């Protein structure tokens, strides 16, 4: 174990002003991380993603917090003006840039750190209760300090999407930014949560985020994660979801930025009739590496999980999808499907795909499939015979490939913005130079 440079930081992460239970979480997470260390490629879960350089990089918690203006945040707001929005700059909550509805009847959309004072019982009951303790979630927990807390009381519906914007701004070389989010949705509540990761003047920094979501009985959560980190950034994110009876969770994870990124989505359908839909889109170019992992755990009957992840990789980019569906004994009438499709646009781009099924119940419907292909010449010819030139034809095909995932985002402001972003990427001649 050579994470020596973290030890001093660990010491300061413990805070005398924090409650005992929180320091206990930090303490045990620290032990856990020290024991595990960063994974290597010998680790089955990290076979395709090399994070060994993390070991040598002297990451340190971000300590510089520039003042940003609304104008600087606006490009990341999807043109929305009335969404409840929480802005974090280099991990620190910035109330001046944020706007959230009045916290009434217990509804809370705000800073997790502030909630230590206002909602300590809620945090103590749920924080760090759901996330699996791997090296990165442990590293996050060891430093847990700030992020978003969303609490939806029973039957509460928040109509506008709740937007969490994590900005890295001149964070300095090797800054470590570790947002920690908790979403507790009461029975029959309903909301859309959007997580944006963006950069202004990005250097080599490392975002290690964890979001835990508990969806109560019949709650309905739509969750969109848009990763647009800086080109030199590392991004590791884990979204851990616990679903209670007949709860529904729909997610779309879009990866556009970062030098190396990974998004783990782990869902446990912890009671009957829960359902989830997990979608992902990764567009890698240059030397980007994008890794998406899913783990869907079906311990109870009549759960539904549908997954669709698609990747478009150009240049020397590499994409990874690894998804596991685990249907436990007794999880009868489970309906679980998983599809991963990759489009390679150059000879040096690569895609690794590992769909996995483990089924211990006998009355289930489960399928999985994976494909890696190139632009279809016969379709390009067809488009050409309609007057559409080669450049436009391949742009249309790539767009069509991505569209299937983008159209699963139910907020037009977001899907239209993504349409524009990716179409302009596919229109850029530089994108196609290899």
């Amino acid at each position, binding site marked *: 174990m050579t994470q020596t440079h973290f030890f001093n930081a660990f010491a300061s992460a413990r805070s005398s002003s924090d409650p005992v239970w929180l320091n206990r979480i930090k303490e045990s997470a620290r032990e856990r991380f020290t024991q595990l260390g960063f994974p290597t490629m010998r680790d089955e879960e990290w076979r395709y993603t090399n994070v060994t350089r993390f070991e040598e990089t002297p990451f340190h918690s971000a300590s510089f917090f520039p003042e940003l203006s609304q104008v600087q945040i606006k490009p990341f707001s999807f043109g929305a003006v009335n969404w409840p929005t929480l802005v974090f700059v280099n991990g620190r909550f910035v109330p001046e840039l944020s706007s959230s509805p009045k916290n009434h009847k217990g509804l809370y959309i705000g800073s997790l750190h502030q909630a230590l004072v206002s909602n300590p019982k809620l945090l103590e009951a749920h924080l760090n209760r759901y996330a699996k303790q791997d090296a990165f979630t442990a590293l996050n927990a060891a430093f847990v300090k700030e992020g978003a807390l969303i609490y939806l009381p029973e039957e509460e519906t928040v109509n506008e999407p709740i937007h969490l914007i994590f900005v890295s701004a001149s964070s300095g070389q090797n800054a470590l930014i570790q947002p920690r989010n908790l979403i507790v949705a009461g029975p029959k509540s309903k909301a859309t949560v959007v997580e944006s990761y963006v950069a202004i003047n990005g250097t080599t920094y490392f975002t290690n985020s964890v979001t835990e979501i508990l969806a109560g009985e019949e709650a309905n959560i739509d969750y969109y994660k848009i990763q647009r980190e800086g080109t030199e950034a590392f991004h590791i994110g884990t979204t851990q979801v616990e679903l209670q009876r007949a709860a529904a969770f729909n997610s779309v994870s879009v990866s556009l930025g970062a030098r190396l990124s990974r998004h783990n989505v782990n869902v446990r359908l912890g009671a009957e009739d829960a359902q989830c839909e997990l979608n992902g889109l990764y567009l890698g170019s240059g030397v980007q590496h994008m890794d998406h992992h899913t783990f869907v755990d079906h311990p109870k009957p009549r759960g539904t999980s549908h997954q669709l992840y698609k990747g478009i990789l150009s240049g020397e980019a590499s994409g990874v999808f690894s998804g596991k569906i685990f249907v436990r004994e007794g999880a009868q009438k489970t309906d679980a499907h998983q599809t991963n499709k990759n489009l390679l646009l150059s000879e040096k781009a690569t895609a690794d795909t590992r769909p996995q099924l483990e089924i211990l119940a006998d009355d289930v419907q489960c399928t999985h499939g994976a494909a890696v292909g190139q632009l*279809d010449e*016969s*379709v390009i*010819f*067809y*488009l*050409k*015979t*309609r*007057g*559409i*030139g*080669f450049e*436009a034809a391949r742009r*249309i*095909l790539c*767009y*069509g*490939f*991505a*569209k*299937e995932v983008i159209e699963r985002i139910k907020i037009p402001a977001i899907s239209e913005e993504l349409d524009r972003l990716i179409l302009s990427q596919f229109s850029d001649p530089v994108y196609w130079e290899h």
Partner: protein
Amino acid sequence: MLEIKNLHVSIEGKEILKGIDLKIGAGHIHAIMGPNGSGKSTLTQVLAGNEAYTVTKGEVIYQGKNLLEMSPEKRAREGIFLAFQYPVEIPGVSNAYFLRAALNEIRVSKGLDEIDAVDFLTFLKEKMKLVEMDPSFIHRAVNEGFSGGEKKRNEILQMAILEPTLAILDETDSGLDIDALKIVAAGVNKLRSPERATLVVTHYQRLLNYIVPDFIHVLVDGRIMKSGHKELAFQLEEKGYDWVREGV
């Protein structure tokens, strides 16, 4: 309008077309009939510019220009349209998006302004009525999950929108029931004009009851064995293609 002279075409070293001569004048409908494997589809693909085929000899002149030197998209912009025997599916790309992109490429090449999304939608709906397509097809991905007949109708819809000078229909009648056949034929007949020409490729005489050709050519083993007027279709129907082969 189109003149094919001594056209020889191979694919993967195998000669499919062995010297085709054909002249199509403006205002005319020509039909090419022939048994399976005679080279009918190959001819349509070569005219559309499919690079999988190699022209080993001969030339094709379209409106005074060397067609074989043009890219497929250039040919389309110059007014050539091929209705495919097997239209391809384009997942994720809606019919409206695709058709507008195609129409605008052609308009821009002619120095016209692009048509905006709202005007296009009105135009598209009008044309869809013509081929009796349900408006739900506007937003469906091109040909994805379409039945055979729906795909063929979608080809005719594209033709109606792009208004080609030379339309080439490759076995558009195969897999169509009689009602669909009538709709497709009506779409083709609507485009009939003294400035335009149509080349209909078919295995059966049936389609020619609805799209009445001015000339019929019989293609067997890569050569046009017989040419004549519409009566030839009835003779073929009666006597079969062997009759043409034996006549040589």
